[in-house]
């Protein structure tokens, strides 16, 4: 990693060569079937994140295949981190997996294959060109199809989904967001627009438009606009006029 930013991009400060990273446990690995099994999945993934040396971690609620997490599910997710941090002992050693033949060999293998792919993208002209050509999208779609096929054929086992299923009714509480909150938000916008200095707000928006057409930095104009109570949608729309929309 350090080598990458040093060799390719001319970084000279070691701090710029560090990969600081945040980790989130995988939402798509959670299952709606037997949802409490997800606590075990999140625990394993928490351990993997910590063994990998993460600087920051989010753990998913066990009910997230069904809804956003309830307060109780969010607490269990946090407790999972606290148990790994304070009870497991894994934090007492720096890089506990160091020297494991399998992990080191796998790391080298993944690194080598990733390099090949990065070089391929470089040849295409970098990420922006590769995305515009649909390359990344196609690669991901192919892998996703392959993964799904393995689940459907049973080549890959998902506990509770294609093996060890039980016939049960869901008893996990589902967190519901009421549709009425849209009305609450709309009323807040109406009140805001009625009480703000509209002439000032409009002047801020046309200033954003003008700066977007120039090479000046947009941020001071955006800060000024929000301070004068322009809304998120108004600012985004002003730039839609200048930049257009993608697809």
């Amino acid at each position: 990693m350090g080598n990458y930013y040093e060799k390719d991009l001319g970084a000279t400060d070691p701090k710029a060569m560090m990969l600081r990273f945040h980790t989130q446990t995988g939402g798509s690995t959670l299952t709606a079937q037997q949802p409490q099994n997800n606590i075990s999945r999140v625990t394993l993934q928490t351990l993997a994140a910590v063994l990998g040396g993460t600087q920051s971690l989010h753990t998913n609620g066990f009910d997230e295949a069904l809804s956003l997490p309830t307060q109780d599910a969010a607490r269990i997710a946090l407790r999972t981190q606290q148990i790994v941090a304070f009870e497991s002992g894994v934090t007492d050693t720096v890089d506990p997996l160091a020297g494991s033949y399998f992990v080191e060999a796998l790391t080298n293998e993944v690194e080598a294959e990733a390099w090949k792919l990065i070089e391929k993208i470089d040849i295409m002209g970098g990420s922006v060109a590769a995305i515009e050509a649909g390359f990344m999208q196609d690669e991901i779609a192919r892998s996703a199809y392959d993964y799904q096929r393995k689940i459907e054929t049973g080549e890959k086992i998902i506990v509770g989904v294609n093996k060890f299923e039980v016939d049960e009714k869901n008893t996990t509480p589902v967190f519901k967001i009421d549709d009425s909150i849209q009305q609450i938000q709309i009323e807040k916008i109406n009140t805001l627009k009625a009480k703000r200095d509209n002439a000032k707000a409009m002047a801020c928006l046309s200033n954003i438009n003008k700066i977007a057409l120039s090479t000046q930095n947009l941020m001071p104009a955006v800060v000024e606009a929000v301070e004068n109570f322009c809304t998120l949608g108004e600012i985004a729309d002003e730039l839609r006029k200048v930049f257009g929309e993608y697809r």
Partner: protein
Amino acid sequence: MHRKTRRIPFTRGVQSDMYRGKMWTMRQYAGFSTAEESNKRYHYLLSQGVSGLSVAFDLPTQIGYDSNHPLADGEVGKVGVAIDSLEDIETLFAGIKLEDVSTSMTINASGFILLAFYVALAKKQGADLKKISGTIQNDILKEYAARGTYIYPPKASMRIITDIFEWCSKEVPKWNTISISGYHIREAGSTAVQEIAFTLSNGKAYVKAALEKGLILMFLANASPSSLIRTTICLKK
């Protein structure tokens, strides 16, 4: 193989003593419904021992539509909190001093607006902007590649992102201006190799865009690209 900690290329970790010295940040991603409701959840999480906040926004906020837009119908407050104005951000962080917390905001296409809301609130709270810390995801390339919440065409998006790099380096120097994400690439079904390659390649595109803008020293010294990498449960590819 000599790959020690705190030495380039930092394979063993970015701190010499890792968690013996400092625990990771327990940062729970949360947000739903209105700013009032989400604020309650943040206070609850803080009371239970989280060490950093992480804001989830609803889809209209992520793609730059107010809650009264026809395209927002049925989506307001559903997958995250609805934020339309500075007043909503004030409510979201009521009772929380921005100088004392680090806040991560998972926001990309409209990240520049949310950053402006956050900074405007910090100013209103009388905070020293030099002390404000947090992160906006701001990784638009993976939105085109995997996740879909983009607004503008790629080149315009890259201009907004480099404007953020430049402005933050002067005004909010402790802010992490981008978090380059493998997570959504993996969640969309990629392999581990594709996740790493695409994420690093995207990182390179941002660094190059910053270099082209003449931001070389600021960028490489202040903001090493941090990366959001999904935890892989199994040690197989």
